[in-house]
Protein backbone atom coordinates (compact mmCIF):
# COMPACT_ATOMS: atom_id res chain seq x y z
CA UNK A 1 0.00 0.00 0.00
CA UNK A 2 2.72 2.41 0.98
CA UNK A 3 4.74 1.43 -2.06
CA UNK A 4 1.84 2.10 -4.31
CA UNK A 5 1.31 5.58 -2.96
CA UNK A 6 4.92 6.44 -3.50
CA UNK A 7 4.54 5.49 -7.17
CA UNK A 8 1.27 7.27 -7.67
CA UNK A 9 2.03 10.57 -5.95
CA UNK A 10 4.61 12.09 -8.34
CA UNK A 11 2.34 11.00 -11.16
CA UNK A 12 -0.54 13.02 -9.77
CA UNK A 13 1.74 15.98 -9.17
CA UNK A 14 2.81 15.83 -12.80
CA UNK A 15 -0.82 15.86 -13.91
CA UNK A 16 -1.44 18.96 -11.86
CA UNK A 17 1.65 20.78 -13.03
CA UNK A 18 0.65 20.12 -16.63
CA UNK A 19 -2.91 21.16 -16.04
CA UNK A 20 -2.03 24.37 -14.27
CA UNK A 21 0.68 25.27 -16.75
CA UNK A 22 -1.60 24.89 -19.81
CA UNK A 23 -4.36 26.69 -17.96
CA UNK A 24 -2.05 29.62 -17.25
CA UNK A 25 -1.01 29.76 -20.90
CA UNK A 26 -4.56 29.85 -22.18
CA UNK A 27 -5.48 32.40 -19.51
CA UNK A 28 -2.58 34.60 -20.59
CA UNK A 29 -3.67 34.32 -24.25
CA UNK A 30 -7.27 35.18 -23.49
CA UNK A 31 -6.30 38.14 -21.32
CA UNK A 32 -3.97 39.44 -24.03
CA UNK A 33 -6.60 39.17 -26.74
CA UNK A 34 -9.31 40.74 -24.67
CA UNK A 35 -7.12 43.60 -23.53
CA UNK A 36 -6.07 44.29 -27.11
CA UNK A 37 -9.65 44.33 -28.29
CA UNK A 38 -10.61 46.53 -25.35
CA UNK A 39 -7.70 48.90 -25.94
CA UNK A 40 -8.35 49.33 -29.67
CA UNK A 41 -12.08 49.62 -29.15
CA UNK A 42 -11.86 52.20 -26.35
CA UNK A 43 -9.34 54.31 -28.26
CA UNK A 44 -11.24 53.93 -31.49
CA UNK A 45 -14.63 54.76 -30.06
CA UNK A 46 -13.30 57.88 -28.31
CA UNK A 47 -13.18 59.64 -31.69
CA UNK A 48 -16.94 59.63 -31.83
CA UNK A 49 -17.20 61.63 -28.62
CA UNK A 50 -15.39 64.53 -30.25
CA UNK A 51 -17.56 67.46 -31.35
CA UNK A 52 -18.63 67.34 -35.01
CA UNK A 53 -17.68 63.70 -35.53
CA UNK A 54 -20.21 60.92 -35.83
CA UNK A 55 -19.98 57.32 -36.98
CA UNK A 56 -21.93 57.77 -40.20
CA UNK A 57 -19.85 60.74 -41.35
CA UNK A 58 -16.71 58.85 -40.42
CA UNK A 59 -17.64 55.82 -42.51
CA UNK A 60 -19.03 57.71 -45.50
CA UNK A 61 -17.08 60.98 -45.50
CA UNK A 62 -14.78 61.60 -48.45
CA UNK A 63 -12.53 64.22 -46.94
CA UNK A 64 -9.65 63.23 -44.66
CA UNK A 65 -7.95 66.28 -43.15
CA UNK A 66 -7.35 65.48 -39.48
CA UNK A 67 -5.01 68.43 -38.90
CA UNK A 68 -7.13 70.95 -40.83
CA UNK A 69 -9.31 73.59 -39.32
CA UNK A 70 -11.94 72.46 -38.96
CA UNK A 71 -10.59 68.87 -39.07
CA UNK A 72 -12.40 66.39 -41.34
CA UNK A 73 -12.53 62.68 -40.67
CA UNK A 74 -13.92 60.91 -43.73
CA UNK A 75 -12.54 57.37 -43.88
CA UNK A 76 -14.40 56.16 -46.95
CA UNK A 77 -11.39 56.49 -49.31
CA UNK A 78 -9.36 54.15 -47.08
CA UNK A 79 -12.20 51.68 -46.72
CA UNK A 80 -12.69 51.65 -50.47
CA UNK A 81 -8.93 51.35 -51.00
CA UNK A 82 -8.62 48.39 -48.62
CA UNK A 83 -11.58 46.51 -50.07
CA UNK A 84 -10.71 47.06 -53.73
CA UNK A 85 -7.04 46.08 -53.35
CA UNK A 86 -7.83 42.97 -51.28
CA UNK A 87 -10.67 41.74 -53.44
CA UNK A 88 -8.79 42.43 -56.68
CA UNK A 89 -5.81 40.60 -55.22
CA UNK A 90 -8.03 37.63 -54.44
CA UNK A 91 -9.53 37.72 -57.93
CA UNK A 92 -6.03 37.47 -59.38
CA UNK A 93 -4.66 34.95 -56.89
CA UNK A 94 -7.66 32.60 -56.52
CA UNK A 95 -7.68 31.15 -60.06
CA UNK A 96 -3.88 30.95 -60.10
CA UNK A 97 -3.67 29.33 -56.67
CA UNK A 98 -6.49 26.86 -57.22
CA UNK A 99 -5.14 25.82 -60.63
CA UNK A 100 -1.66 25.40 -59.16
CA UNK A 101 -3.16 23.26 -56.42
CA UNK A 102 -4.96 21.10 -59.01
CA UNK A 103 -1.70 20.61 -60.84
CA UNK A 104 0.13 19.70 -57.63
CA UNK A 105 -2.44 17.20 -56.45
CA UNK A 106 -4.16 15.79 -59.53
CA UNK A 107 -1.89 16.20 -62.53
CA UNK A 108 1.59 15.59 -61.14
CA UNK A 109 1.33 14.72 -57.46
CA UNK A 110 4.93 13.49 -57.21
CA UNK A 111 6.56 16.64 -58.58
CA UNK A 112 3.94 18.74 -56.80
CA UNK A 113 4.68 17.44 -53.35
CA UNK A 114 8.43 17.28 -53.77
CA UNK A 115 9.19 20.56 -55.54
CA UNK A 116 6.21 22.88 -55.98
CA UNK A 117 4.83 22.77 -52.44
CA UNK A 118 8.15 23.85 -50.85
CA UNK A 119 8.60 26.62 -53.43
CA UNK A 120 5.15 27.99 -52.72
CA UNK A 121 5.68 27.77 -48.98
CA UNK A 122 8.92 29.71 -49.54
CA UNK A 123 6.86 32.54 -51.06
CA UNK A 124 5.01 32.81 -47.77
CA UNK A 125 8.25 33.33 -45.89
CA UNK A 126 9.53 36.31 -47.89
CA UNK A 127 9.26 39.50 -45.80
CA UNK A 128 6.63 41.93 -46.99
CA UNK A 129 9.15 44.75 -47.38
CA UNK A 130 10.81 42.70 -50.11
CA UNK A 131 7.53 42.35 -51.95
CA UNK A 132 6.94 46.08 -51.60
CA UNK A 133 10.41 46.89 -52.83
CA UNK A 134 10.10 44.65 -55.88
CA UNK A 135 6.68 46.11 -56.56
CA UNK A 136 8.05 49.61 -56.35
CA UNK A 137 11.12 49.05 -58.50
CA UNK A 138 9.73 46.61 -61.10
CA UNK A 139 5.95 46.64 -61.17
CA UNK A 140 5.28 50.36 -60.75
CA UNK A 141 7.61 51.48 -63.60
CA UNK A 142 6.09 48.79 -65.81
CA UNK A 143 2.53 49.94 -65.08
CA UNK A 144 3.59 53.56 -65.60
CA UNK A 145 4.88 52.71 -69.07
CA UNK A 146 1.91 50.64 -70.13
CA UNK A 147 -1.06 52.47 -68.63
CA UNK A 148 -1.83 56.17 -68.23
CA UNK A 149 -1.04 57.40 -64.70
CA UNK A 150 1.90 57.20 -62.34
CA UNK A 151 1.90 53.43 -61.99
CA UNK A 152 1.25 53.55 -58.27
CA UNK A 153 -2.27 52.83 -57.06
CA UNK A 154 -4.79 50.05 -56.60
CA UNK A 155 -3.54 47.98 -59.55
CA UNK A 156 0.02 47.86 -58.24
CA UNK A 157 -1.18 47.19 -54.68
CA UNK A 158 -3.50 44.40 -55.78
CA UNK A 159 -0.79 42.73 -57.85
CA UNK A 160 1.76 42.77 -55.05
CA UNK A 161 -0.86 41.50 -52.61
CA UNK A 162 -1.99 38.76 -54.99
CA UNK A 163 1.50 37.28 -54.96
CA UNK A 164 1.67 37.57 -51.20
CA UNK A 165 -1.61 35.70 -50.68
CA UNK A 166 -0.93 33.09 -53.36
CA UNK A 167 0.72 30.67 -50.88
CA UNK A 168 -2.26 30.86 -48.51
CA UNK A 169 -4.77 30.07 -51.24
CA UNK A 170 -2.62 27.40 -52.91
CA UNK A 171 -1.70 25.57 -49.71
CA UNK A 172 -5.25 25.43 -48.39
CA UNK A 173 -6.60 24.40 -51.81
CA UNK A 174 -3.94 21.70 -52.18
CA UNK A 175 -4.75 20.31 -48.72
CA UNK A 176 -8.45 20.25 -49.54
CA UNK A 177 -7.91 18.53 -52.89
CA UNK A 178 -5.48 15.99 -51.48
CA UNK A 179 -7.89 15.22 -48.64
CA UNK A 180 -10.75 14.39 -50.99
CA UNK A 181 -11.70 10.74 -50.74
CA UNK A 182 -10.17 8.66 -53.49
CA UNK A 183 -13.37 6.66 -53.86
CA UNK A 184 -15.27 9.63 -55.30
CA UNK A 185 -12.68 10.10 -58.02
CA UNK A 186 -12.71 6.36 -58.74
CA UNK A 187 -16.49 6.46 -59.02
CA UNK A 188 -16.22 9.17 -61.62
CA UNK A 189 -13.42 7.52 -63.61
CA UNK A 190 -15.27 4.20 -63.54
CA UNK A 191 -18.18 5.84 -65.37
CA UNK A 192 -15.85 6.81 -68.18
CA UNK A 193 -15.13 10.38 -67.09
CA UNK A 194 -11.89 11.96 -68.27
CA UNK A 195 -9.55 13.63 -65.83
CA UNK A 196 -10.89 17.11 -66.56
CA UNK A 197 -14.49 15.97 -66.33
CA UNK A 198 -13.65 14.48 -62.94
CA UNK A 199 -11.94 17.69 -61.82
CA UNK A 200 -14.74 20.00 -63.00
CA UNK A 201 -17.74 17.92 -62.05
CA UNK A 202 -16.65 16.10 -58.90
CA UNK A 203 -13.47 17.42 -57.35
CA UNK A 204 -14.08 21.18 -57.57
CA UNK A 205 -17.76 21.18 -56.53
CA UNK A 206 -17.04 18.86 -53.60
CA UNK A 207 -14.12 20.89 -52.29
CA UNK A 208 -15.66 24.30 -53.02
CA UNK A 209 -16.26 25.35 -49.39
CA UNK A 210 -12.65 24.54 -48.51
CA UNK A 211 -11.36 26.37 -51.58
CA UNK A 212 -13.41 29.41 -50.59
CA UNK A 213 -11.98 29.20 -47.09
CA UNK A 214 -8.54 29.64 -48.61
CA UNK A 215 -9.70 32.61 -50.66
CA UNK A 216 -11.29 34.32 -47.65
CA UNK A 217 -8.16 33.77 -45.56
CA UNK A 218 -6.20 35.26 -48.45
CA UNK A 219 -8.46 38.32 -48.57
CA UNK A 220 -8.13 38.66 -44.84
CA UNK A 221 -4.35 38.58 -45.08
CA UNK A 222 -4.39 41.12 -47.92
CA UNK A 223 -6.71 43.34 -45.90
CA UNK A 224 -4.29 43.43 -43.00
CA UNK A 225 -1.06 43.81 -44.97
CA UNK A 226 0.40 47.30 -44.52
CA UNK A 227 4.00 47.73 -45.55
CA UNK A 228 4.08 46.30 -49.06
CA UNK A 229 0.87 48.09 -49.99
CA UNK A 230 2.01 51.36 -48.56
CA UNK A 231 5.13 51.24 -50.75
CA UNK A 232 3.22 50.97 -54.03
CA UNK A 233 -0.15 52.60 -53.50
CA UNK A 234 0.87 56.28 -53.40
CA UNK A 235 -0.90 57.20 -50.15
CA UNK A 236 -3.14 60.02 -51.36
CA UNK A 237 -6.26 60.25 -49.15
CA UNK A 238 -8.94 60.22 -51.82
CA UNK A 239 -10.93 57.76 -53.90
CA UNK A 240 -9.07 57.32 -57.19
CA UNK A 241 -10.74 57.55 -60.57
CA UNK A 242 -8.64 54.77 -62.05
CA UNK A 243 -6.69 51.76 -60.88
CA UNK A 244 -3.44 53.55 -61.69
CA UNK A 245 -3.89 56.58 -59.50
CA UNK A 246 -2.53 57.21 -56.04
CA UNK A 247 -4.79 56.25 -53.13
CA UNK A 248 -4.57 54.78 -49.60
CA UNK A 249 -5.77 51.86 -47.56
CA UNK A 250 -6.72 51.61 -43.88
CA UNK A 251 -3.40 49.98 -43.05
CA UNK A 252 -1.20 52.28 -45.08
CA UNK A 253 -2.63 55.45 -43.57
CA UNK A 254 -2.18 54.09 -40.06
CA UNK A 255 1.47 53.10 -40.55
CA UNK A 256 2.28 56.39 -42.27
CA UNK A 257 0.62 58.74 -39.78
CA UNK A 258 0.77 57.00 -36.40
CA UNK A 259 4.28 58.21 -35.57
CA UNK A 260 3.42 61.82 -36.31
CA UNK A 261 0.47 62.17 -33.97
CA UNK A 262 0.23 62.94 -30.28
CA UNK A 263 -1.54 60.35 -28.18
CA UNK A 264 -5.03 61.51 -27.31
CA UNK A 265 -5.20 64.09 -30.10
CA UNK A 266 -8.18 63.90 -32.49
CA UNK A 267 -5.89 62.76 -35.32
CA UNK A 268 -4.50 59.96 -33.16
CA UNK A 269 -7.96 58.84 -32.08
CA UNK A 270 -9.14 58.82 -35.68
CA UNK A 271 -6.32 56.44 -36.58
CA UNK A 272 -7.44 54.17 -33.75
CA UNK A 273 -10.90 54.26 -35.24
CA UNK A 274 -9.44 53.05 -38.53
CA UNK A 275 -7.70 50.25 -36.63
CA UNK A 276 -11.03 49.37 -35.05
CA UNK A 277 -12.60 49.06 -38.51
CA UNK A 278 -9.72 46.81 -39.59
CA UNK A 279 -10.12 44.63 -36.54
CA UNK A 280 -13.86 44.33 -36.98
CA UNK A 281 -13.39 43.30 -40.59
CA UNK A 282 -10.92 40.63 -39.52
CA UNK A 283 -13.56 39.27 -37.15
CA UNK A 284 -16.04 39.18 -40.04
CA UNK A 285 -13.54 37.23 -42.15
CA UNK A 286 -12.96 34.76 -39.32
CA UNK A 287 -16.70 34.20 -39.01
CA UNK A 288 -17.03 33.62 -42.75
CA UNK A 289 -14.22 31.06 -42.62
CA UNK A 290 -15.83 29.30 -39.65
CA UNK A 291 -19.13 29.16 -41.47
CA UNK A 292 -17.52 27.77 -44.62
CA UNK A 293 -15.66 25.14 -42.62
CA UNK A 294 -18.87 23.99 -41.02
CA UNK A 295 -20.44 23.67 -44.44
CA UNK A 296 -17.53 21.71 -45.88
CA UNK A 297 -17.95 19.04 -43.21
CA UNK A 298 -21.53 18.22 -44.22
Amino acid at each position, binding site marked *: MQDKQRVVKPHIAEEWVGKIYTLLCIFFLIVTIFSMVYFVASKGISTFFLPNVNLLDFLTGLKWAPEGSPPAFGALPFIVGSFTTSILAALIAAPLGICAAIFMTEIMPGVGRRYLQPVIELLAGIPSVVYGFIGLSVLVPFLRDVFPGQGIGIAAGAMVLSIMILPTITTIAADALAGLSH*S*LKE*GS*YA*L*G*ATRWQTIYRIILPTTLPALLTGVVLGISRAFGEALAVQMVIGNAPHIPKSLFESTSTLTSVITLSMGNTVSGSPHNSALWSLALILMSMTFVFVFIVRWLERRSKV
Partner: protein
Amino acid sequence: MTTKFEVNELQLHYGEFHALKQISLSIPERSVNALIGPSGCGKSTFLRTLNRMNDMISSVRVDGEIKLSGTNIYDTGMDVEELRKRVGMVFQQPNPFPKSIYENVAFGPRLHRKPGRKELDEIVEKSLRGASLWDEVKDDLHKSALGLSGGQQQRLCIARALAVNPEVLLMDESTSALDPISTLKIEELIQELKKDYTIVMVTHNMHQAARVSDYTTFFLNGEVIESSPTEKLFSTPVDHRTEQYITGRFG
Protein backbone atom coordinates in the same frame (compact mmCIF):
# COMPACT_ATOMS: atom_id res chain seq x y z
CA MET B 1 -22.75 -19.21 -75.12
CA THR B 2 -20.56 -16.39 -76.47
CA THR B 3 -17.48 -15.24 -74.66
CA LYS B 4 -17.42 -11.68 -73.32
CA PHE B 5 -13.89 -11.49 -71.94
CA GLU B 6 -11.05 -13.62 -73.19
CA VAL B 7 -7.96 -13.24 -71.00
CA ASN B 8 -4.67 -14.57 -72.38
CA GLU B 9 -1.45 -14.88 -70.38
CA LEU B 10 -2.13 -11.73 -68.37
CA GLN B 11 0.72 -10.54 -66.17
CA LEU B 12 0.68 -7.60 -63.84
CA HIS B 13 3.53 -6.06 -61.85
CA TYR B 14 3.33 -3.42 -59.13
CA GLY B 15 6.87 -2.17 -59.48
CA GLU B 16 8.88 -5.31 -58.62
CA PHE B 17 5.96 -7.22 -57.18
CA HIS B 18 4.49 -9.82 -59.53
CA ALA B 19 0.81 -9.53 -58.65
CA LEU B 20 -0.84 -11.51 -61.44
CA LYS B 21 0.90 -14.47 -63.05
CA GLN B 22 -0.07 -15.94 -66.41
CA ILE B 23 -3.81 -15.52 -66.03
CA SER B 24 -5.83 -17.14 -68.77
CA LEU B 25 -9.57 -17.15 -68.35
CA SER B 26 -12.72 -16.75 -70.36
CA ILE B 27 -15.86 -15.09 -69.10
CA PRO B 28 -19.11 -15.98 -70.85
CA GLU B 29 -21.68 -13.37 -71.77
CA ARG B 30 -24.77 -12.86 -69.56
CA SER B 31 -23.50 -14.89 -66.64
CA VAL B 32 -22.44 -14.23 -63.09
CA ASN B 33 -18.75 -14.89 -62.50
CA ALA B 34 -17.41 -15.00 -58.98
CA LEU B 35 -13.73 -14.49 -58.17
CA ILE B 36 -12.78 -15.99 -54.82
CA GLY B 37 -9.57 -16.41 -52.88
CA PRO B 38 -7.84 -15.24 -49.72
CA SER B 39 -6.93 -11.57 -49.17
CA GLY B 40 -4.06 -10.37 -51.32
CA CYS B 41 -4.44 -13.17 -53.88
CA GLY B 42 -4.95 -10.72 -56.75
CA LYS B 43 -8.67 -11.11 -57.37
CA SER B 44 -9.43 -7.39 -56.98
CA THR B 45 -6.37 -6.47 -59.00
CA PHE B 46 -7.56 -8.78 -61.75
CA LEU B 47 -11.05 -7.26 -61.66
CA ARG B 48 -9.51 -3.82 -62.11
CA THR B 49 -7.60 -4.90 -65.19
CA LEU B 50 -10.95 -5.52 -66.91
CA ASN B 51 -11.82 -1.80 -67.01
CA ARG B 52 -8.21 -0.61 -66.75
CA MET B 53 -8.70 1.06 -63.37
CA ASN B 54 -5.14 0.02 -62.56
CA ASP B 55 -3.90 2.53 -65.15
CA MET B 56 -4.15 5.22 -62.52
CA ILE B 57 -1.40 3.64 -60.43
CA SER B 58 1.82 4.69 -62.12
CA SER B 59 3.93 1.72 -60.99
CA VAL B 60 1.62 -0.85 -62.61
CA ARG B 61 2.77 -2.73 -65.71
CA VAL B 62 0.44 -5.03 -67.59
CA ASP B 63 1.45 -7.65 -70.16
CA GLY B 64 -0.63 -10.13 -72.09
CA GLU B 65 -4.05 -9.41 -73.50
CA ILE B 66 -7.66 -9.11 -72.49
CA LYS B 67 -10.14 -9.28 -75.32
CA LEU B 68 -13.55 -7.69 -74.86
CA SER B 69 -15.84 -9.03 -77.59
CA GLY B 70 -12.76 -9.70 -79.69
CA THR B 71 -10.72 -6.49 -79.28
CA ASN B 72 -7.75 -6.28 -76.96
CA ILE B 73 -8.48 -3.57 -74.38
CA TYR B 74 -4.75 -3.07 -73.81
CA ASP B 75 -4.14 -2.09 -77.45
CA THR B 76 -2.52 1.32 -77.74
CA GLY B 77 -5.46 2.71 -79.70
CA MET B 78 -8.00 1.75 -77.01
CA ASP B 79 -10.21 4.57 -75.79
CA VAL B 80 -10.16 3.99 -72.02
CA GLU B 81 -13.16 6.23 -71.32
CA GLU B 82 -15.19 4.31 -73.91
CA LEU B 83 -14.04 1.04 -72.33
CA ARG B 84 -15.17 2.15 -68.86
CA LYS B 85 -18.51 3.16 -70.32
CA ARG B 86 -18.93 -0.40 -71.61
CA VAL B 87 -17.54 -2.02 -68.46
CA GLY B 88 -19.16 -0.46 -65.41
CA MET B 89 -17.94 -0.88 -61.86
CA VAL B 90 -19.40 -0.94 -58.36
CA PHE B 91 -16.98 -0.62 -55.46
CA GLN B 92 -16.66 -2.13 -52.01
CA GLN B 93 -17.79 0.97 -50.14
CA PRO B 94 -20.84 2.74 -51.58
CA ASN B 95 -19.43 5.94 -53.10
CA PRO B 96 -22.35 8.13 -54.20
CA PHE B 97 -21.35 11.63 -55.25
CA PRO B 98 -22.36 14.38 -52.80
CA LYS B 99 -25.19 15.39 -55.13
CA SER B 100 -28.88 14.57 -55.43
CA ILE B 101 -30.07 11.05 -56.28
CA TYR B 102 -31.11 12.28 -59.72
CA GLU B 103 -27.74 13.97 -60.35
CA ASN B 104 -25.89 10.83 -59.35
CA VAL B 105 -27.66 8.71 -61.95
CA ALA B 106 -27.55 11.46 -64.60
CA PHE B 107 -23.81 11.96 -64.09
CA GLY B 108 -22.69 9.19 -66.45
CA PRO B 109 -25.00 9.93 -69.39
CA ARG B 110 -24.04 13.61 -69.22
CA LEU B 111 -20.36 12.77 -69.53
CA HIS B 112 -20.71 11.17 -72.90
CA ARG B 113 -23.39 13.23 -74.63
CA LYS B 114 -26.00 15.89 -73.95
CA PRO B 115 -29.29 14.10 -73.42
CA GLY B 116 -32.46 16.22 -73.31
CA ARG B 117 -34.38 16.69 -70.08
CA LYS B 118 -37.06 14.18 -71.01
CA GLU B 119 -34.62 11.53 -72.19
CA LEU B 120 -32.56 12.01 -69.03
CA ASP B 121 -35.66 11.60 -66.85
CA GLU B 122 -36.33 8.33 -68.63
CA ILE B 123 -32.76 7.11 -68.22
CA VAL B 124 -32.84 7.95 -64.50
CA GLU B 125 -36.11 6.12 -63.94
CA LYS B 126 -35.06 3.10 -65.98
CA SER B 127 -31.71 2.83 -64.19
CA LEU B 128 -33.24 3.21 -60.74
CA ARG B 129 -35.85 0.58 -61.60
CA GLY B 130 -33.04 -1.61 -62.92
CA ALA B 131 -31.33 -1.35 -59.57
CA SER B 132 -34.61 -1.99 -57.65
CA LEU B 133 -34.41 1.40 -56.02
CA TRP B 134 -37.09 3.37 -57.88
CA ASP B 135 -39.98 2.63 -55.56
CA GLU B 136 -37.99 3.70 -52.52
CA VAL B 137 -36.69 7.00 -53.90
CA LYS B 138 -39.10 8.14 -56.62
CA ASP B 139 -40.44 10.97 -54.45
CA ASP B 140 -37.03 12.07 -53.23
CA LEU B 141 -35.07 12.24 -56.48
CA HIS B 142 -33.76 15.69 -55.71
CA LYS B 143 -32.68 14.95 -52.17
CA SER B 144 -29.05 14.29 -51.36
CA ALA B 145 -27.83 10.78 -52.07
CA LEU B 146 -25.86 10.89 -48.83
CA GLY B 147 -29.13 10.66 -46.88
CA LEU B 148 -29.78 7.12 -48.14
CA SER B 149 -28.93 4.01 -46.14
CA GLY B 150 -25.78 2.05 -47.02
CA GLY B 151 -27.71 -0.57 -48.95
CA GLN B 152 -29.67 2.06 -50.84
CA GLN B 153 -26.46 3.94 -51.61
CA GLN B 154 -24.94 0.80 -53.06
CA ARG B 155 -27.99 0.20 -55.24
CA LEU B 156 -27.77 3.84 -56.30
CA CYS B 157 -24.19 3.16 -57.36
CA ILE B 158 -25.46 0.20 -59.37
CA ALA B 159 -28.12 2.44 -60.95
CA ARG B 160 -25.44 5.02 -61.70
CA ALA B 161 -23.39 2.36 -63.46
CA LEU B 162 -26.42 1.08 -65.41
CA ALA B 163 -27.26 4.59 -66.62
CA VAL B 164 -24.43 4.61 -69.16
CA ASN B 165 -25.78 1.35 -70.60
CA PRO B 166 -22.77 -0.91 -70.01
CA GLU B 167 -22.31 -4.46 -71.26
CA VAL B 168 -20.43 -5.67 -68.22
CA LEU B 169 -20.76 -4.88 -64.53
CA LEU B 170 -17.76 -5.38 -62.26
CA MET B 171 -18.51 -5.67 -58.54
CA ASP B 172 -15.62 -5.40 -56.12
CA GLU B 173 -16.87 -6.99 -52.88
CA SER B 174 -19.90 -4.79 -53.31
CA THR B 175 -21.88 -6.28 -50.45
CA SER B 176 -19.14 -6.66 -47.87
CA ALA B 177 -19.92 -3.30 -46.24
CA LEU B 178 -23.67 -4.00 -46.08
CA ASP B 179 -26.03 -5.63 -43.62
CA PRO B 180 -27.51 -9.08 -44.45
CA ILE B 181 -30.86 -7.75 -45.69
CA SER B 182 -29.24 -5.23 -48.04
CA THR B 183 -26.87 -7.96 -49.18
CA LEU B 184 -29.80 -10.23 -49.99
CA LYS B 185 -31.45 -7.47 -52.00
CA ILE B 186 -28.34 -6.97 -54.06
CA GLU B 187 -27.92 -10.71 -54.59
CA GLU B 188 -31.49 -10.87 -55.90
CA LEU B 189 -30.75 -7.89 -58.08
CA ILE B 190 -27.72 -9.66 -59.54
CA GLN B 191 -29.98 -12.50 -60.64
CA GLU B 192 -32.14 -9.98 -62.49
CA LEU B 193 -29.20 -8.13 -63.99
CA LYS B 194 -27.55 -11.19 -65.47
CA LYS B 195 -30.36 -11.38 -68.04
CA ASP B 196 -28.92 -8.27 -69.68
CA TYR B 197 -25.40 -7.88 -68.37
CA THR B 198 -22.28 -9.89 -67.85
CA ILE B 199 -21.35 -9.71 -64.18
CA VAL B 200 -17.93 -10.27 -62.69
CA MET B 201 -17.85 -10.09 -58.92
CA VAL B 202 -15.10 -10.36 -56.36
CA THR B 203 -16.29 -11.80 -53.10
CA HIS B 204 -14.58 -12.97 -49.96
CA ASN B 205 -17.73 -14.79 -49.02
CA MET B 206 -17.71 -18.30 -50.47
CA HIS B 207 -21.35 -18.84 -49.63
CA GLN B 208 -22.24 -15.80 -51.67
CA ALA B 209 -20.24 -17.14 -54.61
CA ALA B 210 -22.05 -20.47 -54.29
CA ARG B 211 -25.46 -18.77 -54.04
CA VAL B 212 -25.34 -16.28 -56.87
CA SER B 213 -22.69 -17.20 -59.43
CA ASP B 214 -22.74 -19.43 -62.49
CA TYR B 215 -18.96 -19.71 -62.71
CA THR B 216 -16.35 -19.45 -60.01
CA THR B 217 -12.65 -18.79 -60.32
CA PHE B 218 -10.30 -19.48 -57.44
CA PHE B 219 -7.25 -17.21 -57.15
CA LEU B 220 -4.20 -17.91 -55.01
CA ASN B 221 -0.97 -15.88 -54.88
CA GLY B 222 -1.69 -14.15 -58.17
CA GLU B 223 -2.54 -17.30 -60.08
CA VAL B 224 -5.78 -18.86 -61.23
CA ILE B 225 -5.86 -22.25 -59.53
CA GLU B 226 -9.18 -23.39 -60.82
CA SER B 227 -12.07 -22.02 -62.85
CA SER B 228 -15.24 -23.96 -63.54
CA PRO B 229 -19.03 -23.88 -63.22
CA THR B 230 -19.83 -22.93 -59.64
CA GLU B 231 -21.60 -26.15 -58.77
CA LYS B 232 -18.70 -28.23 -60.00
CA LEU B 233 -16.05 -26.13 -58.27
CA PHE B 234 -17.76 -26.39 -54.93
CA SER B 235 -18.77 -30.07 -55.19
CA THR B 236 -15.83 -31.70 -56.97
CA PRO B 237 -12.84 -29.37 -57.02
CA VAL B 238 -9.93 -30.68 -59.09
CA ASP B 239 -7.07 -29.01 -57.26
CA HIS B 240 -6.44 -29.90 -53.62
CA ARG B 241 -5.73 -26.21 -52.78
CA THR B 242 -9.22 -25.31 -53.99
CA GLU B 243 -10.64 -28.00 -51.81
CA GLN B 244 -8.67 -26.82 -48.81
CA TYR B 245 -9.85 -23.25 -49.34
CA ILE B 246 -13.53 -23.98 -49.83
CA THR B 247 -13.59 -26.29 -46.84
CA GLY B 248 -12.13 -23.48 -44.79
CA ARG B 249 -8.71 -24.87 -44.06
CA PHE B 250 -6.98 -21.55 -44.90
CA GLY B 251 -7.78 -18.04 -46.02
